[in-house]
């Protein structure tokens, strides 16, 4: 019985996860290493990678700043509507990315206040980088907050108060006490944000317009190549993204192990 269960899990794992990856890898190299290299070094593919990296980096920085700030405010301050804000933070998890993209289209459309305003200011939001960043921010926002809030609750306020009695001002308290306590949560949240930002498709597809060499990210490039029957290109770019994701996942697992040992240490106290 035990072996049967383990067998089922293995089979499921092979068919659903390992099989497709191996098949995709074999297809990427079906026309040789040279073809693989040509496909991922093609200007369209390179542009896709660069754009994805840009978006990911900007979103990561913004999430690190605003995610930490939001978590701090939620965990440390008491304000009217707190439970509402806390509940709404998870909304991006529940809403389809396509809907998120569509909301941005409506918000920045030419007939709206924001759309008119950005149009007057000569800032192109839709079908350009700003909208793609906003869409990615929307779908990744909960990761940082959800990682940091429980850590802040566990930390409590006594260590921060102790630092204040020793003369530390608010900024020093944050840098020397709060931030070090959050470090593994930040790594964890950042990894999830990066993984999600790299892989985002739906929301970005809707707001970007998928314009070749302009607003086509790596995932959009995979989709376009597939639609155009260029399977080698689709496979090659997909495999590259997969390798990146795998590397991120490894970082995540290490971070998790470290964070758990930190929690165990805290528990031992």
């Amino acid at each position, binding site marked *: 019985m035990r072996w049967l269960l383990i067998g089922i899990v293995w089979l499921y794992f092979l068919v659903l996860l390992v099989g497709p990856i191996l098949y995709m890898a074999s297809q990427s190299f079906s026309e040789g290493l040279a073809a693989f290299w040509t496909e991922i070094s093609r200007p369209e593919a390179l542009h896709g990678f660069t754009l994805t990296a840009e978006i990911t980096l900007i979103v990561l920085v913004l999430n690190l700043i605003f995610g930490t700030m939001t978590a701090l405010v939620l965990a440390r301050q008491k304000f009217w509507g707190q439970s509402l804000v806390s509940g709404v933070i998870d909304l991006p998890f529940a809403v389809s990315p396509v809907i998120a993209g569509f909301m941005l289209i409506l918000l920045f459309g030419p007939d709206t206040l924001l759309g008119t305003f950005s149009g007057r200011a000569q800032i192109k939001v839709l079908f350009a980088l700003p909208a793609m960043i906003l869409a990615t921010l929307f779908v990744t926002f909960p990761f940082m907050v959800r990682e940091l809030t429980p850590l802040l609750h566990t930390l409590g306020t006594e*260590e921060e*108060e*102790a*630092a204040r*009695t*020793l003369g*530390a001002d608010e900024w020093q308290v944050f840098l020397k006490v709060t931030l*070090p*306590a959050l470090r593994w949560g930040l790594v964890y949240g950042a990894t999830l944000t990066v993984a999600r930002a790299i892989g985002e498709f739906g929301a970005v597809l809707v707001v970007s317009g998928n314009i070749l060499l302009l607003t086509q990210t790596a995932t959009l490039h995979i989709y376009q190549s597939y639609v155009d029957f260029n399977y080698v290109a689709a496979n090659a770019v997909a495999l590259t993204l997969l390798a990146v994701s795998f590397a991120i996942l490894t970082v995540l697992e290490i971070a998790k192990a470290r964070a758990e040992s930190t929690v165990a240490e805290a528990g031992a106290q």
Partner: protein
Amino acid sequence: MKIEVRGLTKKFGSGTAVGNVSFVVHEGELLGLLGPSGSGKTTVLRLIAGLEVPTAGDIFIDGKRVNDLTVQERNIGFVFQHYALFKHLTVFDNIAFGLNIKKWNRRDIEQRVTELLALMSLEGLGGRYPHQLSGGQRQRVAIARALAPRPSVLLMDEPFGAVDAKVRQELREWLIRLHTDLNVTSLFVTHDQEEAMEVSGRIIVFSKGKLEQAGSPADVYEEPATEFVARFIGSMNIVAGVARRGQVQVGSLEFPAPGFPDGQTLQVGFRPYYVKVAEDPARYRQQAKLRHIYFLGVAYRLEIETPDGLILRSRMNKEEFRRCRFTVGQAVSFAVTHFRILPQEGTDGTISSETGKPITGPLTP
């Protein structure tokens, strides 16, 4: 440095945590704030530290009003109940934290931390992390960290609350020695009356945000100002009776109470060791039945019941107990040799006889 609070009040929402409290901690004193949990004593400590803002009243440290100073500017050392050591820093860096903030140079920091490690018997532990220390060691690191920047006063919130009984005893003795050596004005909070008695030079007793009594451990023990103090500190028999013609009659017991109007209900308190018990029924005037014998290690406690159903506790040393050869259930005689009429809880703590003098006195058995 001297600490003084005047009319200190702190309200949280509709509740009053601290109500109009005034007291002085003299320079170099080790003073204990004693009270049950929720009595507002920790809030008083946090108000003095500047971690809470008072609703009303003034706080003076070294004669200077500090109400408008931030916690950072008050130059106090604070020891938290659960130590609040920085988990990600070593013992050395924990102790050096305040010195780094105050921008001491590296040499001075090293010297000061080494000095404190020695003073706290923590030599060789500078490189450890808090989770690698025992409870007693953590507590000493917390005190060292608070003392490092040479604070003008040391405030400690239940400093022995989180360690086990044996370590607690050692730490108490150690703290008394440390205080004798350093002589820094210290204020600590505890709910443990024995601890307050042993450690403090003076005790302030709190109940429900109010100051009940301030005095030396002996004063507070021997002459409790209120019924609350009497009940909270040590063990006390407390009986109630109505004053009549200058006397309070409680069953067959009579206590003189001159000056109290007829009909006033009075609380009479007496310590167990003022209840003398003899197996000879003719020895004392009062009769009772022995209900229980408790062995306390250093002494025995007898529980007796009077014919009126009053249950009283008596304390007897071992020698006397052995002479008497009591058996549970036997008839005994007893007398109360010393008593005290206690002001009612809820009054302002002054003794309520007309003469304004506390009514206490020996009774002839």
